[in-house]
């Protein structure tokens, strides 16, 4: 454990140094983050030009969901996508061989070694939107809701990680998966709205099949005191289950890589 933390620290140090090599990205990244946030908020604001509530959610309640969406997309782009890009590159160029010949868990190495710190701007803006939306609520969430919220956010991270890994691992079969990002976005895109505004079939899909509801709607509902505990428990089980599946799938893919490639 301590060794893995040390290695993670070394990875991140190198990644941050790499980011600093491209300092201009900071400014551009900041501009992009603002454009992105405006896009997300604008997308929901247009609805409220024509209606008071979206599926029982008021504008500022829905804004809480949007804020969480911006935050988690930011986190994904900060710590997951750089690795996704790397994995695709490794498989295409054959440098995955170097990772597989290192005495280190290959999934850990391939999926956590890169970060893109400039994307932290999205996370900051997202958190700002969440805070702003909370201030507009009649009452601030209590301690128990806050603790539960943080736990649910952790589960959300694990769910995002596992879903991403499940997708990217398929790159071992389909080498040219440059656009895998698009596919990830398809899953995440629906997360910008509270799931309750969707028709029931879509709501079930987004909660249990592509469990994006657990990333935005459910943590938001906890802060708004709209949720019972069973859902939180389910979120934890789901996160653990998906993580295990993603690990098994990765191992399976590496074995396939070893037996099928030249």
């Amino acid at each position, binding site marked *: 454990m301590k060794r893995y933390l040390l290695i993670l620290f070394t990875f991140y140090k190198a990644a941050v140094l790499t980011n600093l090599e491209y300092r201009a990205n900071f400014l551009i990244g900041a501009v992009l983050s603002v454009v992105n946030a405006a*896009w997300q908020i604008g997308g929901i604001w247009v609805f409220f*030009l024509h209606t008071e509530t979206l599926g029982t959610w008021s504008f500022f309640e829905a804004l809480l969901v949007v804020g969480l969406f911006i935050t988690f997309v930011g986190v994904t782009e900060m710590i997951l996508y750089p690795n996704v890009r790397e994995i695709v590159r490794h498989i295409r160029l054959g440098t995955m061989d170097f990772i597989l010949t290192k005495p280190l868990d290959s999934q850990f190495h391939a999926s956590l070694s890169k970060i893109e710190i400039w994307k932290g701007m999205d996370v900051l803006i997202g958190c700002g939107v969440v805070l702003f939306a909370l201030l507009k609520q009649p009452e601030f969430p209590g301690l128990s809701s806050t603790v539960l919220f943080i736990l649910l956010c952790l589960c959300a991270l694990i769910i995002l990680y596992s879903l991403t890994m499940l997708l990217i691992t398929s790159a071992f079969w389909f080498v040219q998966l440059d*656009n895998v990002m698009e*596919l990830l976005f*398809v899953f995440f895109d629906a997360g910008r709205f509270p799931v309750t505004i*969707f028709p029931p079939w879509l709501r079930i899909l987004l909660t249990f099949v592509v469990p994006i509801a657990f990333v935005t709607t459910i943590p938001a509902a906890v802060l708004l005191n709209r949720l019972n505990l069973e859902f939180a428990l389910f979120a934890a089980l789901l996160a653990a289950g998906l993580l295990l599946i993603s690990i098994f799938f990765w191992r399976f893919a590496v074995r396939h890589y070893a037996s099928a490639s030249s």
Partner: protein
Amino acid sequence: MSRITHWLRVYGALFRASFGVSVTYRAQLVIWVLSGILPLIMMTVWITVAQDQPGGQINGFDQTAFISYYLAVTIVRRLTGVWIIWDIDEDIRQGTLSAKLLRPLHPTHNYLTMAVTDKPVELLFILPPVALAAWLTGAQYNFSPQNMLLFGVAIIGAVGIEFGVTMAIGALAFWITQMMSVMEVWFFSRAFFSGWIIPIAMFPDFLQDILLFLPYRYVLSFPIELLLGRLNSADIGLGFVVQWGWVAFLFLLFPKLWRRGVSKYSAVGA
């Protein structure tokens, strides 16, 4: 005449080559097709909102109109989207452009073929399910021959704008390393203002008026509006003037940028 056959042959060969590549990566195609889902999600939300309104309408859109609109979005977006910026970026930054410049054929033609070759295959995949959905839901379009002709011209104009913008922004890579970020700003703003996730008719009036003169409407919304038969002849006339005005502007602009960029590129010897 022989020049025409020459170009037909050139484009035939380019098309075959890039078609071979695109079909090889069939997994990628599936992803492209799947990525058209966001508009459909937006559709369900709009329908929910519309049902709660008096008269079941928002700005003249009822349930059928929303369905017709968003089903058309999935098709038209595939028809008009140009996704070659990554290739341009790689060519310029990795130096593969040098090889392409040596050929007696300007890379523009290469990029143009790359931009449009995927379209038939994508359409092959996406048209049947969308047509079926349109039939089942009773979506309404104006399929009169005259209107289809206008629709066709609008589609070509839309591809023209998309391609022109991509080439113009792509040329920035000759000068700045952050070209992709500029492109992302275009992607974001286009997603929002072109009618991809929100019909332009849903925006406040002042925004609609501004969008009448920006390129965004003309890469997606305009052809769809034609298809839906929502425009009178004055609207159509103005639309074509603005759309082809942008096409003309961009096709004057990007070759200039490329000429300058290439001469700088060769001078540095990248």
